[in-house]
């Protein structure tokens, strides 16, 4: 009987993770997931911006078919009544649930996260999401600002919490409900961080002393870069702390010290995210669902951390389009464990000695795309594969423009050699 699906999608996360070879980051929980998964090291989004990328991988269609390149149209009205991946699971007997940011909220998902088509119950949005862009960041003068860099004292935040903390709590609650009802589920959990503002519990900053943070390896605008290709990082310029720097448009540059602070805060936000993922996976163990649940971990696109003199996404560069992508499939990517055995014990980023979690057990270097997620998950769950779309498919409700990548699971190399000694047993 089909496996459950836990689909974790992270907002603006590039593969700055231990299991992708990053030596600075502390991401023990995601690394632990990778060690039980097949890890794709060359996975790319169809477009490096939230709504178009999410609608693309959730419908299995490319942006030229969803005709969504911005945030302001709903594919069912504007392009075609395409079935979505959760909708397909729902039609195949799953209870489908959305927590946090899965679809991009607003017009592009009909102000409803495409409920009821995609989801069995109304999607959950953390109540504190609405404060995301408020003036909650304490400046050096003690006043509150809407900054890009925003380490906070969580107890001072509205409702004394943050959106991703609330999302983890709700996802764990739903897992318990599904277990008690013995119900097959497709649970999508969308985390907000490290999307800007980089607002996270301030203690995570201690993990990344500024003296350890360097500039990007190539922090200048390349000489032969066509001007049309360059993205002028407009959204971060509108944050109070960046605006105060009075940086020239479009090329800046930002002061070196501030560039390093952005990178420092991005890493801190990634470790905060890792903690949330760790709590969620630990609960999967506690509830006894680790042996019957496929876990997918990915992001909607990457984020430039100063490379090519750019920040944010909004370009075709690898740093903006490349995403982490891994699949944990019990009994396939890892031998099934005894009911009592833990697969994902929580690992505290503050006390965990990095390097004690081996890199992804199975790694595939194949170049793959997020548009393949729909067919890949259908195949892993044992559902009939959605048909391949014809050349023009605006009139076709169910088809996919991305082929399943399960065939690359077998082609992936087992990481028996240890190419990064500090990271392997």
């Amino acid at each position, binding site marked *: 009987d089909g496996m459950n699906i836990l689909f974790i999608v992270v907002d603006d996360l590039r593969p700055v993770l231990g299991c992708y070879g990053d030596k600075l980051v502390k991401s023990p929980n995601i690394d632990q997931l990778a060690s039980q998964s097949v890890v794709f090291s060359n996975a790319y989004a169809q477009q490096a911006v939230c709504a178009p990328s999410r609608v693309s991988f959730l419908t299995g269609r490319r942006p030229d078919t969803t005709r969504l390149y911005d945030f302001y149209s709903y594919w069912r009205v504007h392009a075609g009544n395409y079935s979505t991946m959760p909708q397909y699971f729902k039609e195949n007997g799953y209870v489908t649930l959305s927590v946090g940011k899965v679809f991009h909220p607003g017009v592009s998902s009909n102000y409803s996260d495409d409920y009821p088509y995609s989801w069995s119950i109304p999607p959950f949005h953390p109540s504190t999401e609405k404060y995301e862009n408020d003036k909650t960041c304490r400046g050096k003068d003690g006043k509150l600002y809407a900054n890009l860099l925003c380490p906070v004292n969580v107890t001072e935040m509205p409702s004394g919490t943050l959106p991703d903390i609330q999302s983890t709590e709700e996802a764990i609650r739903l897992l318990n409900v599904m277990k008690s009802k013995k119900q097959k589920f497709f649970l999508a959990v969308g985390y907000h961080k490290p999307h800007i503002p980089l607002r996270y519990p301030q203690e995570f900053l201690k993990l990344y002393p500024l003296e350890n943070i360097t500039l990007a390896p190539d922090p200048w605008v390349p000489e032969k870069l066509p001007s049309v290709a360059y993205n002028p990082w*407009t959204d971060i310029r509108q944050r109070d702390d960046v605006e105060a720097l009075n940086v020239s448009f479009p090329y800046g540059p930002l002061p070196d010290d501030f560039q390093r602070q952005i990178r420092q805060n991005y890493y801190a936000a990634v470790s905060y995210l890792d903690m949330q993922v760790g709590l969620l996976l630990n609960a999967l163990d506690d509830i006894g669902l680790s042996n019957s649940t496929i876990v997918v971990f990915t992001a909607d696109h990457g984020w430039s951390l100063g490379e090519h003199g750019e920040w944010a996404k909004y370009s075709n560069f690898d740093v903006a389009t490349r995403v982490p992508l891994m699949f944990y499939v019990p009994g396939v990517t890892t031998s099934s464990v005894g009911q009592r055995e833990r697969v994902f014990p929580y690992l505290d980023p503050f006390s965990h000695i990095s390097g004690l979690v081996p890199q992804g057990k199975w790694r595939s270097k194949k170049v793959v795309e997020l548009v393949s997620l729909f067919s890949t998950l259908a195949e892993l769950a044992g559902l009939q594969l959605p048909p391949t779309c014809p050349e023009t498919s605006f009139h076709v409700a169910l088809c996919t423009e991305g082929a399943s990548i399960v065939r690359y699971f077998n082609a992936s190399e087992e990481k028996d050699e240890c190419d990064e000694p500090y990271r392997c047993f």
Partner: protein
Amino acid sequence: DEEPVAFSQYPRPADTPQWNSDKPKLKDIRIMGYSMRTSDYRYTVWVQFNPNNFSANFEDIHAGELYMVETDPNQDCNVYNSTSHGHFLKKIL
């Protein structure tokens, strides 16, 4: 058994950066950058785009990028216009 290819794209309102370059509304899109990624290279063409009928005109190329993964993994050296890669481009196309 062919090596897979990944396709990305990004819209722009103009050839040079302006305030809405990062997030142009559909009606303001004039150029679309289509990227093709393989394990060996990254090839992008920025072509004229008509938002009224969603058509991209590959005859009207505004700019191009070509990065060789092995020698330039960080994509800092665009060799689209270099003669030494002319044959390579023909091969791709």
